[in-house]
């Protein structure tokens, strides 16, 4: 039973409306890229959820490692001066 080869896994991204970016919707198996788009249409857009589909083979995605979370993202926490709320300005000066 396990001798059969699985179809490759694809990640599916859907643009729901013009003006919005593609958002990850889920994944699916397909034999090739074209079938992945066709299956994505059937699986993820049965109720007008999309206007455009991107598919990409899951093994082609490079992701950051969970263990690097601290090294990658913690430094931003201490840089409060990157946010506008960090600055004291008088209330009665407009357009700031």
């Amino acid at each position: 039973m396990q001798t059969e080869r699985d179809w490759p896994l694809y990640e599916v991204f859907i643009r729901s409306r013009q003006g919005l970016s593609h958002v990850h919707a889920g994944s699916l198996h397909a034999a090739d890229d074209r079938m992945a788009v066709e299956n994505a249409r059937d699986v993820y857009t049965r109720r007008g959820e999309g206007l455009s589909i991107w598919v990409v083979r899951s093994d082609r995605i490079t992701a950051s490692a969970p263990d690097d979370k601290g090294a990658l993202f913690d430094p931003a926490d201490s840089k409060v001066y990157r946010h506008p709320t960090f600055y004291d300005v008088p209330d009665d000066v407009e357009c700031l």
Partner: protein
Amino acid sequence: MPAVAMEDDIRRTRFDAHVAGEGKVEPQDWMPEGYRKTLIRQISQHAHSEIIGMQPEGNWITRAPSLRRKCILIAKVQDEAGHGLYLYSSAETLGVSRQQMEADLLSGKAKYSSIFNYPTLTWADIGAIGWLVDGAAITNQIPLCRCSYGPYARAMVRICKEESFHQRQGFELMMALSKGSPEQRRMAQDALNRWWWPSVAMFGPPDSDSIHGSQNAAWKIKRFSNDELRQRFIDMTVKQAEALGLTIPDPDLKFNTESGHWEIGEIDWDDFWKVVKGDGPCNRQRMAHRKKAHDDGAWVREAALAHAAKARARTEKKVA
């Protein structure tokens, strides 16, 4: 304590605190083996139920009484296939392959919801399934939208949105029958008689006998107990049956004015376990059908891969 065990202990404590504080877990995060196994079991079982659940309704597509009902039923059965696929993909993020899950279903190692081992004898059963079975499923599934495991919770959000059409079309179908000829009313009542108890049993054994309860609650996988969810379903459905002018087949059904809840008679748990263990009216038929569909599709799966390989070779040649 060995260093590895200690590290796992620290991770475990951190994980438990994260989940207890309503933090979500994503596929790449560290998680206890038990958490992973529980989720694989639950999500794949849920996926199998969606796929096997296509059979009792698919059985009526060619016999739907109007084009409108046929379109609705096809859309519903197609949704069940979709739900199965969302769930299989979310289980795959936990490291189990689609083939392994399929193999476990076909070998009988993995279970699916027992409700689909009952037959659909008349057209009214299609209404009863949508109204009762999908009604019970929604009651079960809404809290799962807040499950601690992100991919499962996201699949459930999508599924719950779609299930509400399933329940409403079932209720509407029952309403059409219960407002129809005396024969149609009898058919609707007969379907309710047969589907009521299996639907109530769908929530699983009473809390006093349930084996997976407390750990799953702590991990925010299961937020309400079987009995709590069952009660919700009963309270909501008794009123709906009234609106249909149908009678719930339970002489002991009564309203408790103190608690404000409807109380039902004894559930036949022997029958429930008999069906779970494989001796329901349709267990063998459902599995035989799934196995045949899987085997009959083998050449399609192979051909698609062969075609993909050929097309790839052609493009590579052109590029070279």
